[in-house]
């Protein structure tokens, strides 16, 4: 393009130069002609001066010696002016013809001067003086004649030269107009061509720029000519490609960030440790293309890093329980000192990991830290391609989030447990307060009812000793039976309300249970109930045997009563944490869910006339007084399980 512009501009320049040269030459010629004309005019003036001078001198000549004759100095001055006028004519460049005439003029002037001088200086007789005067006058006339003749010819020549000069000026003007017109036409077409050459690639570039601006990254233009625009087009294409690559990288990065977000979010959304581990490992697999991913977590109790989860493409693992010594791993970690490290086959660290667990060409180790402590690590086996710094950063973020999520899970579990305990404590407090209130009421009521009942029973016995009809006797039996039942209820009420001190002895729970089962076995057999016992060896514990037996009695009785059509009664004992547990399960009708929370309330019963609704309340209070807990699980139509936890207490 530059060459083209230079070429075009050079041609225009040549045209202009031609015009300029023509103008310059023409100006020179015209100027020269004008100079000639000016000179001719000046010469004309000189000639006129010459003629005037000759005439003046001639006049002087004829007045010399008269009153009106001028001073000799003036005559001398006039003659010298004449002489100067002739010399001035001679100074100009003339043709040989004019030069010849001027030479003749010069000669005449010299003769005239001599004649004049002779006439002026001669002292002779009047005839001689007259002759000298005539000679001088004659020369003067000749001089005048020649000068006039020359003036005429010069005037002719001046006119001719003027006409020629005007003609030349006209020709030059026409030539200049022609050159300027040609230059303009060429310049116009050159401008058109250049504009076209420039505008076309610019338009292409504009369209391409708009395409890129509208999101069509990577769009390329095809400009082959002119070279400058071709280079510009190449640069544009390079830029477009670069933008596309950048966009792809950005999108890839955003995708990774999204993936990172998804993984971290999923890890934080789930509360189960197992699920978090699964999400973590799956997330890593999504980010890195490898043959397998293995997650190891630290167990501080045994100072071991154990395989918690893995995903492999093939059967890389030779076994599924892999454990590394904490000391070895810490040593490798300290040797790396980074967030992650890539190990290769010939490296000792890789061999330490692989041992006879798996085979790997390379191994990417991502360390999981929490609160500056190594809490685990991730082994990525046979990574495909390269892991960039960005990948490492993302993996580190996932690992950190994983560590935090795990920590959160533990915290969550802890909080959940605490909340549960709190709820239980709260329920127990409510229950205790409720029982205390009911107990107090029951004691008052029992005291008030016991005396009338004793009176009723006394008088009933006295009446029975009287002569009464059989009908009345039967009625009295009913009164006596109901009164006894009422007194029994009152006694239970008093029992419930009375806070008896615990008579703690070393108790064998299994043996106590055997005693209760033996006592109730007739009822169990009668009810066609199959009894299953699973007693684990238990340590003795300090407990009030009578009260504990009452609890077992209540629970087994309730189970038997819950299976009127028969069923399976399962009684288990065992150890749970630092407690002894006793579990009594039936396959009975179950307790509806809506009343399940109320079953330990006093006087709450589902057995109508058969129960007082105090058995479970008393059992609850006895277990509580032993520092234990009692739980119930029930499913309607499938059965109910009561679980008693008693702390193992020893003599201090």
């Amino acid at each position, binding site marked *: 393009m530059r060459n083209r512009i230079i070429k075009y501009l050079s041609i225009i320049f040549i045209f202009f130069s031609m015009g300029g040269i023509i103008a310059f030459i023409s100006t020179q010629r015209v100027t020269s002609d004008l100079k000639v004309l000016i000179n001719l005019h000046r010469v004309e003036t000189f000639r006129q001066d010459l003629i005037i001078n000759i005439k003046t001198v001639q006049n002087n000549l004829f007045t010399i010696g008269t009153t009106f004759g001028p001073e*000799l100095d003036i005559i001398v001055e006039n003659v010298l002016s004449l002489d100067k006028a002739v010399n001035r004519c001679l100074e100009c460049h003339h043709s040989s013809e004019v030069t010849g005439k001027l030479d003749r003029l010069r000669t005449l002037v010299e003769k005239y*001067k*001599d004649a004049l*001088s*002779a006439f*002026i*200086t*001669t002292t*002779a007789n009047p005839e*001689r003086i007259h002759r000298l005067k005539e000679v001088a006058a004659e020369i003067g006339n000749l001089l005048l004649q020649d000068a006039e003749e020359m003036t005429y010819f010069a005037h002719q020549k001046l006119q001719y030269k003027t006409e020629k000069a005007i003609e030349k000026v006209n020709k030059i003007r026409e030539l200049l107009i022609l050159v300027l017109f040609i230059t303009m036409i060429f310049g116009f077409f050159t401008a058109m061509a250049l504009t076209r050459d420039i505008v076309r690639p610019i338009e292409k570039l504009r369209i391409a720029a708009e395409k890129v601006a509208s999101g069509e990254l990577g769009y390329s233009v095809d400009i082959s000519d002119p070279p400058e625009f071709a280079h510009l087009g190449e640069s544009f294409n390079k830029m477009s490609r670069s933008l596309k690559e950048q966009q792809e990288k950005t999108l890839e990065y955003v995708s990774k960030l999204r993936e990172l977000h998804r993984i971290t979010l999923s890890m934080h959304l789930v509360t189960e440790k197992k699920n978090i581990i699964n999400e973590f490992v799956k997330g890593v697999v999504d980010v890195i293309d490898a043959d397998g991913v293995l997650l190891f977590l630290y167990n501080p109790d045994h100072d071991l890093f154990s395989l918690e989860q893995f995903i492999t493409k093939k059967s890389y693992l030779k076994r599924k329980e892999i454990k590394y010594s904490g000391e070895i791993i810490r040593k490798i970690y300290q040797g790396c000192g980074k967030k992650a490290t890539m190990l290769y086959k010939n490296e000792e660290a890789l061999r330490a990991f692989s041992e006879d667990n798996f085979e790997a060409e390379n191994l990417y180790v991502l360390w999981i830290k929490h609160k500056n402590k190594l809490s685990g690590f991730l082994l990525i086996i046979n990574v495909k391609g390269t892991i960039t710094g960005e990948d490492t950063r993302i993996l580190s973020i996932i690992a950190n989030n994983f560590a935090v999520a795990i920590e959160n899970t533990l915290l969550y579990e802890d909080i959940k447990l605490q909340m549960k305990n709190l709820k239980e404590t709260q329920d127990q407090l409510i229950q205790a307060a409720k029982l205390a209130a009911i107990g107090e009421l029951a004691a008052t009521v029992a005291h008030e009812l016991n005396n009338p009942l004793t009176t009723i029973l006394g008088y009933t016995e006295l009446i029975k000793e009287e002569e009464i009809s059989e009908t009345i006797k039967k009625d009295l039996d009913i009164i006596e039976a109901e009164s006894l039942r009422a007194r029994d209820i009152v006694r239970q009420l008093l029992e419930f309300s009375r806070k008896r001190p615990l008579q703690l002895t070393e108790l064998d729970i299994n043996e106590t249970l055997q005693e209760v089962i033996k006592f109730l076995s007739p009822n169990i057999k009668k009810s066609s109930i199959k009894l299953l016992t699973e007693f684990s060896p238990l340590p003795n514990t300090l407990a009030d045997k009578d009260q504990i037996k009452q609890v077992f009695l209540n629970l087994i009785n309730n189970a038997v009563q819950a299976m009127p059509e028969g069923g399976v009664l399962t009684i288990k004992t065992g150890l749970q944490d630092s407690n002894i547990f006793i579990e009594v399960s039936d396959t009975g009708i179950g307790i509806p869910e809506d009343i399940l929370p109320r079953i330990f309330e006093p006087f709450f019963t589902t057995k109508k006339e058969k129960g007082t609704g105090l058995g479970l309340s008393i059992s609850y209070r006895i277990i509580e007084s032993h520092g234990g807990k009692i739980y119930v699980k029930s499913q309607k139509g499938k059965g109910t399980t009561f679980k008693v936890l008693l702390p193992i207490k020893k003599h201090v």
Partner: protein
Amino acid sequence: MKRVIKGILVSVFSLMVIFNAYAQDHTLLIGLIPEQNIFRQFQRFLPLTEYLSKKIDREVKLTILSRYGDIIDRFSSRNMDGAFFGVLTGYLAIKKMDVEPSVVPIELDGSSETSGYIIVRRDSGIESVKDMQGKVIAFVDRATVRGYLFPIIYFKRHGINDIKTFFKEFYFTGSNDASVYAVVDGRADIGCVKANIYEAILARDPTLRKELKIIATSPLMPLSVLCLKKSLPEKLKTKITEILLNMKNDKEGKEVLKRMELKGFRRASMNDFKVVDDIFRELNIDPETYRY
């Protein structure tokens, strides 16, 4: 009021008169004798006036006279400050006026003196004084030695005491070159001329050497003498004289001398006029009464 106006007018007039006098004082007028064609003579001395004007910071003008003799009469009337006199006119001027000699020009060949010639045409047949009888003779001027007094002595020495009767006609051309051309042109048979002018004419037109011949030659005498008015300031006179004497050492002066076809100037003295005394004595003429 009128007195004031009169006073102002008188003051202005007085100033004008003083200014005019000052201006006149500042123009130095030098006279020239028509030694040759008056125009040529005038032109020859023009460069010298320009040079002098510049050197003395005073305008110097030339005035030329139609006759040698006029210079003595008109020296005072034209208020000239000096003039290039001929030997005779210089002699007479010193005698009659308060002028003093200053310098004498030196020719290119180094001589400051020249002779006078009596010339004839070769084809005139005049070989001696005898042949001149009845011919027309052209003198230069009565106030010249070489153009008049020398030929008179020459003719006297050859026994001719009355030129009026011996010659058919005699007249005065007024200048040396006019005498030469009078002989060349046939307006005179015999011409009296200053040798340096004659040689200059022949140098310009060598063909004349074949046409003319010299019959008699006078003794050498100064070419011309610049005499300055005695009343001029001494300082100015000395300055003018020194400038002219040292022209040959000055680049501009050399150029002027070249144009004047001179080598330089030498100091003039009264000895330069001794020849005139001898002539007057031989002719038994009283210079005081000599009519020129």
